[in-house]
């Protein structure tokens, strides 16, 4: 595995199957995610996009009966190894959810909390500012850090959630349809932000919005459902390639809006 010439991928899966109880939701996913790039996962509803995304930081562990077969490698290490504590995985691989879900606390506390529990020793004030600047929210909230986070607008809340994820200093940020609850202007802001962040972080985003995947991502993985209702990856490549010249008929149909 530790081949000198092999490239260090951000995340690498090897024949990954994901089960909910006896039901196989996702099968045979072999995927290599390019570091410090934006990779989008697209596909029709129920094809297991979110399931795959959540398996990257073991968020599926909370669903009773969920388990995986195969490997998910992060820095060459299988994160499903029994010796690995999932808490450690989630600190390295952060997550932003579909609906903005800030804590019912102040803006400041929202960002500082994650750092505090992970034993961050330096100045929290600096960290909060740094994260808010990175998530392009600083100018809007710098005078009201003690205000409740829930008083912000939906788009601001989602950027706060991104800032909150950054405060834990992850290497990878998973985004599960982060713009589906936002209006187009807020959506564009998040996309700009993703582009900005991809200089430092690997971003994997699940989206229903084809244009978003086309505009904002470097790589695209297309998932679809088989006749046994198990999702699998049909196509994966550079976004422009997948969108302009798909190798698979199903991908072409989906992208051109013929179904899904």
């Amino acid at each position, binding site marked *: 595995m530790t081949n000198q010439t092999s490239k260090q991928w951000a995340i690498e899966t090897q024949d990954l199957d994901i089960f909910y109880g006896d039901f196989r939701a996702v099968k045979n996913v072999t995927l290599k995610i390019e570091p410090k790039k934006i990779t989008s996962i697209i596909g029709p509803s129920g094809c297991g996009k979110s399931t795959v995304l959540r398996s990257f930081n073991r968020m599926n562990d*909370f669903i009773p009966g969920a388990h995986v077969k195969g490997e998910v490698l992060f820095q060459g290490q299988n994160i499903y190894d029994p010796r690995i504590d999932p808490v450690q995985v989630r600190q390295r691989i952060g997550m932003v959810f579909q609906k903005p879900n*800030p804590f019912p606390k102040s803006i400041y506390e929202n960002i500082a909390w994650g750092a505090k*529990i992970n034993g961050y020793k330096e100045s929290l004030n600096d960290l909060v500012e740094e994260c808010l600047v990175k998530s392009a929210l600083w100018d809007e909230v710098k005078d009201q850090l003690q205000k409740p986070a*829930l008083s912000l607008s939906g788009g601001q809340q989602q950027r706060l959630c991104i800032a*909150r994820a950054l405060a834990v200093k992850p290497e990878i940020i998973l985004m599960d349809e982060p713009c589906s609850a936002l209006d187009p202007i807020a959506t564009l802001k998040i996309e700009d932000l993703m582009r900005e962040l991809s200089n430092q972080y690997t971003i994997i985003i699940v989206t229903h919005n084809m244009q978003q995947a086309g505009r904002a991502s470097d790589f695209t993985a297309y998932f679809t459902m088989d006749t046994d209702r198990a999702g699998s990856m049909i196509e994966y490549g550079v976004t422009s390639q997948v969108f302009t010249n798909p190798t698979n008929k199903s991908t072409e149909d989906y992208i051109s809006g013929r179904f899904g």
Partner: protein
Amino acid sequence: MKNPVNLFSSISYSKDLHLENRQKKASIWKALFRLSTLVGVIVLAILILSIVNQAFGLVAFEDINDRNEFISTSIIDVPKTELIQLIENNLNKNRVRTLDTEKPLLDRSKSDLIRIVESEVFKQRIVDSYPLFQSIFTPNEFKSTVAEKYPDAIMEFKSWFTPQFLTESMSKTPELAGVRTALLGSLLLIVITIVVAFPLGVSSAIYLEEYSRQNTWLSRVIQTNIDNLAGVPSIIYGILGLTIFVRAFEPLTSGRFFGYEGANGRTILAAGLTMALLILPILITNAQEAIRAVPNSLRQASYGLGATQWQTIWHHVLPYALPGILTGTILAISRALGETAPLIIVGAATYISKDPSGLFSNFTALPIQIYNWTTRPQQEFRNIAAVAILVLMIMLLSMNAVAILWRNKIQNKR
């Protein structure tokens, strides 16, 4: 909407819309709902009015010793020094000393001195009393009866609810009796109950909701039993408390184990533990509901930042669930404060004039006191029972108010 008129010229349905019929049905249901609420309000109003009816009213006083032998003017015009002299000259020395050590006579207010002189020197006694509504609407009836039976009696409108009622302890004479002992007993009882039941209840709820595997047969059995225990008659908890806390754990509950000279296990500690058992199922189920209502997105957000399960529970689940848990606690406190049956079984004293001094003392509580007074034949005991009920209700309301204020404060922070 009695007669809906079709304002639209075109008819979109070929069928009759039955609008009139549908609206009628709706209004019948609405009237029924309003009626049910009204019934509840009326019953509550009757309850409160009947208590208030007993707590105030006309009374007839009579002095056993003729007051003209002691003073020549109205007692209000007698100066303070003379009042003190009256007390010192006419009461026995022990009584004077007791009064003086409670609060020096010279420091007492004039109204306080008048009260002592009237009740102890003149030996003023209530010979007859009349409830509030009759006192207001048919006072003459009372006046003529009294004039006939007790020609020397003075009539007065009396509020049985006096400051002395709160500060005096038990007495065999209703005018001198108070609820201090029972009030302190109830307060201490509730404190013990909450201190024991709140942590136990909340911890079990956390375990059942956050840690235990749901949907296994064992957790279902436990859950069903907790739900059912909330409905078990309180007297059965009393018997349980008697068997376990009073008898089996007697060395602990009587305090002998800790070096106290406890006589038996019938202490306020045993009663508090019994009450804690009684409210535990209510507390657990309410706390579970509150924890279940915490949105999952909050837990996920916390886990997504690399928090452990305990950090998630402590920093996010519990603060979010706390208002709900407090609501459940309010319900549980109200239940425990009014319970009488288990206290009787566990052995609350019906007559005790000593304040509870600690965990291992004998005690009485407000409901016991009320129960005791209502069983007496004299009308005056019924009057003070009504006042004791008012005291119990005020205590309940103020405790709940504190909990509600606290809850609102938490909710406003969000």
